[in-house]
């Protein structure tokens, strides 16, 4: 399947990346090239194959539901682009 400019804009919107018309045209060519190449996977017979989700055949480890770290507000906020006291600051979202 081939992506049209509207599809590129929809994906960019989902990915929260601003794109202009020139970028849409360029991405359309590149993404369709990559997806066309990926289509070779349709040759593979995957009937009855269980998908492999993780990096290895290992079971996810459970841990005790306890607090292991915390009370480090200053460290957490130390990289904030904008802050207001102990809060991250963003543009107004409610009128």
């Amino acid at each position, binding site marked *: 399947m081939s992506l049209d400019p509207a599809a590129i804009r929809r994906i960019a919107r989902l990915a*929260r990346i601003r794109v202009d018309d020139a970028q849409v045209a360029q991405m359309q060519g590149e993404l369709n*090239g*990559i997806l066309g190449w990926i289509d070779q996977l349709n040759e593979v017979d995957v009937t009855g194959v269980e998908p492999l*989700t993780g990096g290895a055949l290992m079971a996810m480890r459970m841990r005790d539901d306890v607090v292991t770290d915390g009370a480090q507000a200053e460290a957490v906020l130390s990289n904030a*682009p*904008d802050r207001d006291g102990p809060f991250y600051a963003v*543009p107004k979202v409610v009128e």
Partner: protein
Amino acid sequence: MMFELSLAEARDALRARKISSRELTTAYVGAIEQLNPEINAYITPTPDQALAQANAADTALASGDQGALTGIPLAIKDLFCTKGVRTTAGSKILGPFIPPYESTVTSNLLRDGAVFLGKANLDEFAMGSSNMTSAYGAVTNPWTRRGDNRPLVPGGSSGGSAAAVAARMALGATATDTGGSIRQPAAFCGIVGIKPTYGRCSRWGVVAFASSLDQAGPVARTVEDCAILLGSMSGFDPKDSTSANQPVPDFAAACKRGVKGLRIGVPREYRMDGMAPEIEALWQQGLAWLKDAGAEIVDVSLPHTKYGLATYYIVAPAEASSNLARYDGVRFGARSDGHDLTELYENTRADGFGAEVKRRIMIGTYVLSAGYYDAYYLRAQKVRALILKDFTDVFRDVDALLTPATPTAAFGQGEKMDDPVTMYLNDVFTVPVNMAGLPGLALPTGLDASGLPLGLQVIGRPFDEETVFAVSAALERAAGFSAVPTLRAGA
């Protein structure tokens, strides 16, 4: 003289008090000052920190209180968070980021007394095979073709780490490998690099790209040096849910084992159409060396090899699109303002990410989106299961596999940039190893016709890095690779 020592030799000289860490570190800091303007292997050199750590190492050595790496100067790929030292991941979006914590791998190295020379350059978010996608400029390969001074790429994504080690701007370096990012640059720069088994090194504090594939490992100038570094970097970490609770064996001891009686598999699908004859010759030579050393060579088949790359370019971007959702301009990193929150996100990510990162986020977002998930992502996960099964089947019969590390030697800066798929083909021999979570090591065993290094890859069973080191050390002894790059300290 200082630059001729391997990591193991430098460690022994430090312990014998023949040299001090201060002397060794001062030499390497000088090498960085001399060569970094040309090679750009480091984004952020940290000479003051390095010299302070070297002084502390000398105090420890004087009192006999040394660890495995006390006083050894290393480069740290700028993907590992380092407390109080800027960590960029090669991206503009993390330009202002100063981690308030230390990654587990770098904590382990510091625990063992290592000295950190600075943060090494890389492809942006480790996405690339040339180091051309770094927001902090390309890295130049210290090697050049004979009679041709045009700059070559060091490979990627760990291009800064590999170039630093090859040019004697570090004794060793940390690196990471999601689809070949340790092994391909090691091969391009004529050094050794191992991606260990998935789960061997903690991913905690390493900037995430594709979490089911990402794995840290070392690059260094010898197989033994890599073994020493991996021993320090490895170990169970409760903070990484995929960290393996496995004992860490003596990897350096395994280098001395030899290969007598080992069965070495040769996967026929790695003989690609149009592969350079010199790569084929290198491979045959490697097999002959192992046979001479007492190994048995066995032809094997990994039938789904050709689907590895296409599978990777679904799985890795899908995971990347999810991992990179955190860069929103709100909690850390760079921000571009907008009139409302959505515009702030969109502007921040448009300005902060480079073209290759955006391309992969877009692919990943698409293959995970409603209506396409089954056709792309789920199918890729099933093919991934078949790739793993191929390896599981052959490892019933053989102890390790030998393949070429890359389809070509290093290429020129600016080449292979027009079509993303051409660039992706660099990783054809390395990607299946990540898909299956196996250990893989690349080492230099010869030169091509223009004098550039070429590497072989040794692949092992899960958590059997010891056999990988045994086979690789045997190849290293037989190859006697002693060529050095054009650009190097002490030259």
